[in-house]
């Protein structure tokens, strides 16, 4: 008998219910009003008084209207057929909704139950399995997907029967499992999982170490992120957070990309809807959309659903990780999620923490980031969730609760800087403040030395030092004037500008420059560092400026040219000629 409730109070999207039976924290209920059913989640219980946050507009909701509890928490449905779908924050399939406008209480099935999948069994009758064990496989958009034993399975079970290879719907029973007590379970391809609970169906979570190539030079070369790593991108508005995030999601070497558009502009999501079906995955040559899932809860959609959307996205990511896939999860922006928490905490009249955010904001952020990671599954295969979140600090000030608490837990920090953006030095990632903790891991050192060469990290560190030195000299020149410092200072300064212009700056809207494969990044860095190591002879600082502007121009033209094309080689030849003119003997 399901618990029922009656509305006793309404303040915006927080509703008070008087209930007639047991309810659980975070349990889902549906409130009926004016012919609509509004989904809501329990956020506080006080005797028979239950506070719920409604995932919809509460317009015209009245005292006394009925609520029915479902007995489960907010959960997602997981099965083959989710790739290239567009969901809202509660995993409703947006494409299945009718009409141009969203309708209140319009919930759609996230899965397609009629589609047939070519199933192949992995286990055979008599095999022992536990939760998340791979029972069989299907292929979706060229991705090898696994059909797994239920994540909620407890203890060891035996496969009583498994379906033969053939075409099945996701609702068809593909296996029967039996436990020691003789209890039987019919298994189909659908899994359900509560989004606020982290999946833990893996053996161990070692430190991640494999480079995740993004094609963005300022990340891959300078501050690399790894498979299963975490990173965050804070930046004032207009510094290119979204462009950088889109670049990463287009180019990253991941099997599955999940984009959680959390409380951001709808037109940015539309850009993904429009472009991704046309764009080609640089690693597989297939359409980008085929590996992408979008969770769109834009800023004008209900606030409570926005809060849920990041959890929905993470849970879907965990599902694919359990199949041994490399998942990249991008959330734009985690600040909007934190603000949704703040709005709710405010309505519940909780005592506020810093900037009126809830007191436990740091724990909430830390818990969420910890769900990412590189894992060894129970069958010794590896899977990963790489998580990159953007942060939109109020007033561009990084000393605010969301940025500070994220900095404590994310291992890569890509600080977008207003000053660089104003100067159109894109991507506006500040090379000096930003960091990647992974570069310090011996595991990563070993990996990257094998992947590229063993002098790579040394060069990267030198480039960083030169950038810092360049900045110091720029400040001195500003104080003392061009003539106030020795000519060598100008040379050192311009060498750092060369690194900045050629390695760091990258045109995300240029067809060729937008994505740089690792091999090309290696060549660019080598080329630039060779110039940095070259001794030059100049009469005065004007010569230095003029010379390096020409060098930078040639290098930029090279970056705009197709790799290893005649034009590309021609620019390199021109560059060598130019350098020879000023090289000191």
């Amino acid at each position, binding site marked *: 008998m399901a618990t029922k409730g009656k509305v006793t109070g309404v303040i915006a999207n927080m509703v008070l219910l008087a209930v007639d039976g047991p309810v659980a924290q975070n349990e889902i209920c549906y409130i009926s009003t004016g012919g609509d059913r509004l989904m809501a989640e329990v956020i506080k219980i006080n005797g028979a008084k239950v506070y719920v946050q409604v995932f919809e507009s509460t317009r015209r909701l009245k005292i006394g209207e009925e609520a029915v509890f479902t007995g489960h928490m907010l959960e997602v449905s997981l099965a083959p057929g989710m790739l290239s779908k567009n969901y809202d924050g509660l995993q409703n399939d947006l494409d299945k909704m009718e009409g141009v406008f969203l309708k209140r209480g319009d919930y759609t099935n996230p899965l397609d139950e009629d589609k047939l999948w070519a199933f192949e069994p992995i286990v055979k009758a008599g095999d022992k399995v536990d939760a998340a064990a791979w029972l069989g496989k299907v292929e979706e958009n060229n991705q090898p997907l696994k059909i797994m034993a239920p994540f909620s399975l407890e203890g060891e079970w035996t496969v009583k029967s498994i379906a033969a290879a053939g075409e099945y719907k996701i609702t068809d029973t593909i296996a029967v499992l039996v436990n020691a007590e003789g209890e039987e379970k019919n298994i189909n391809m659908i899994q359900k999982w509560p989004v606020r609970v982290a999946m833990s169906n893996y053996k161990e979570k070692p430190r991640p170490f494999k480079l995740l190539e993004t094609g963005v030079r300022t990340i891959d070369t300078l501050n690399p992120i790894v498979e299963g790593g975490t990173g965050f991108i804070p930046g004032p508005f207009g510094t290119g957070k979204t462009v950088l995030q889109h670049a990463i999601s287009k180019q990253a070497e991941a099997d599955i990309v999940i984009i959680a558009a959390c409380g951001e502009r709808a037109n940015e999501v539309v850009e993904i809807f429009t472009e991704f079906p046309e764009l080609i995955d640089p690693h597989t040559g297939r359409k980008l959309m085929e590996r992408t899932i979008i969770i769109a809860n834009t800023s004008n959609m209900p606030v409570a659903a926005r809060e849920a959307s990041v959890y929905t996205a993470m849970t879907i990511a965990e599902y694919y990780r359990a199949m041994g896939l490399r998942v990249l999860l991008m959330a734009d922006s985690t600040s909007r999620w934190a603000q949704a928490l703040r709005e709710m905490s405010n309505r519940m009249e909780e005592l506020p923490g810093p900037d009126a955010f809830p007191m436990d904001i740091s724990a909430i952020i830390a818990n969420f980031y910890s769900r990412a990671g590189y894992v060894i599954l129970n069958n010794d295969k590896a899977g990963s969730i790489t998580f990159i979140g953007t942060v939109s600090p*109020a007033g561009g000030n990084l000393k605010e609760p969301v940025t500070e608490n994220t900095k404590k837990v994310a291992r890569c920090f890509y600080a977008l800087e207003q000053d660089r953006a104003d100067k159109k030095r894109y991507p506006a990632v500040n090379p000096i403040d930003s960091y990647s903790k992974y570069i310090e891991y011996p595991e990563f050192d070993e990996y990257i030395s094998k992947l590229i060469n063993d002098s790579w990290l040394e060069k990267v560190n030198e480039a960083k030092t030169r950038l810092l030195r360049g900045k110091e000299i720029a400040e001195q020149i500003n104080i003392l004037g061009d003539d106030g410092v020795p000519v060598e200072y100008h040379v050192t300064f311009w060498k750092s500008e060369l690194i900045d212009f050629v390695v760091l700056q990258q045109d995300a809207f240029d067809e060729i420059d937008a994505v740089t494969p690792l091999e090309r990044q290696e060549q660019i860095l080598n080329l630039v560092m060779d110039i940095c190591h070259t001794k030059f002879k100049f009469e005065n600082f004007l010569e230095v400026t003029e010379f390096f502007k020409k060098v930078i121009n040639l290098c930029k033209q090279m970056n705009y040219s197709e790799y290893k094309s005649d034009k590309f080689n021609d620019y390199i030849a021109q560059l060598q000629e130019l350098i020879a003119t000023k090289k000191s003997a």
Partner: protein
Amino acid sequence: MATEAFQKIYTKITSITKATCSLKATGVGYDELATVNGKLAQVVKIMGDEVTLQVFEGTGGIPTDAEVVFMGKSPSLKVSDQLTGRFFNAYGDPIDGGPVVEGHEVEIGGPSVNPVRRKQPSELIATGIAGIDLNNTLVTGQKIPFFADPDQPYNQVMANVAMRAQTDKIILGGMGMTNDDYLYFKNLFSNAGALDRIICFMNTTEDPAVERLLIPDMALTAAEYFAVEKNQSVLVLLTDMTMYADALSIVSNRMDQIPSKDSMPGSLYSDLAKIYEKAVQFPAGGSITIIAVTTLSGGDITHAVPDNTGYITEGQLFLRRDSDIGKVIVDPFRSLSRLKQLVAGKKTRKDHPQVMNAAVRLYADAANAKTKQENGFDLTDYDRRTLSFAKDYSDKLLAIDVNLNTTEMLDVTWGLFAKYFKPEEVNIRQELVDTYWKVNA
């Protein structure tokens, strides 16, 4: 609002604050409208049988035995072609002496567009102002504010943009506008013979502040009618959104909510986003474009209102007085149109993106040279050339009195490049230099 037959009248108000009053009532819906002694009010909280009403024009003079009537509907607007050319107050009642509008009644603040049904904006809005068209191109379906100090001529520039833009309807939502500015817009629209495409919802400083909260939703409900039902392109002007936010903070303060940054309610981001996200390109061809004004205090964009706005809107436009040329210009550093790449180089000539970036970069070099000059350092030949370039660039392109088409703007810029620089100083793709440099040399 006349009372209809059989409506229940409550006459026992239990508590009154500056903006709200509470009473015992049953069968009331959240968000519902009511009248309190004829004054319009809206349900903002229901707790058991106690209903809290926000009285738009303030509670001054309301007695505890005031007559309260619930209207059984949320704030709404009657939409039809008759809206065209008319001036209304925040409730949608005419203030121009004309007849009441007949039409289909629509609740304001309606649902959001399903993101998968939106179309990517792709039509350029030409304004003739190079600081906008060249550097910060506007696109239909975009939302963008002017960030301006109160002394800057933002209303004039906005009016100019509105009159030049090729749109079917212009809907002006005025919030806390001075009566003088209201008359400016009214005269401008009437004199330009533009009344056949103007609709105006006006809350001046003479009206109660809380009424402003209805203005954007009124304007956008009208906009949605023309964009969805008539497939028209609609330009909505909202000025001034800072005054709107001030009204939000007044209400939240009266409701005892915990303020967050700058005394603004914690929900400011969502409140503003709900308005700005109404900007949309519909699949059937209609569109809503929003140009707003956010006034700043001493140019401070870290204040909660401009800050949250910047995260919501697709860019922002800054005005600045350039003392070198004595004109107001569109600041190329701080202004940004996020959608410009959807049209720049696609609907305009293909050299547009690179020319735009190169010019701004050179303008930045000029700013550095100027700092050097002010600090008393010697200028190089390059520094002097950038300074001359910057002056010409400001005068011929950035100034708000410019009126050119985009091809002319690009040609003027190439002309300035060739006049002051060598190709390698400009850093543009060689193919483009080959095509356009010689032409203007």
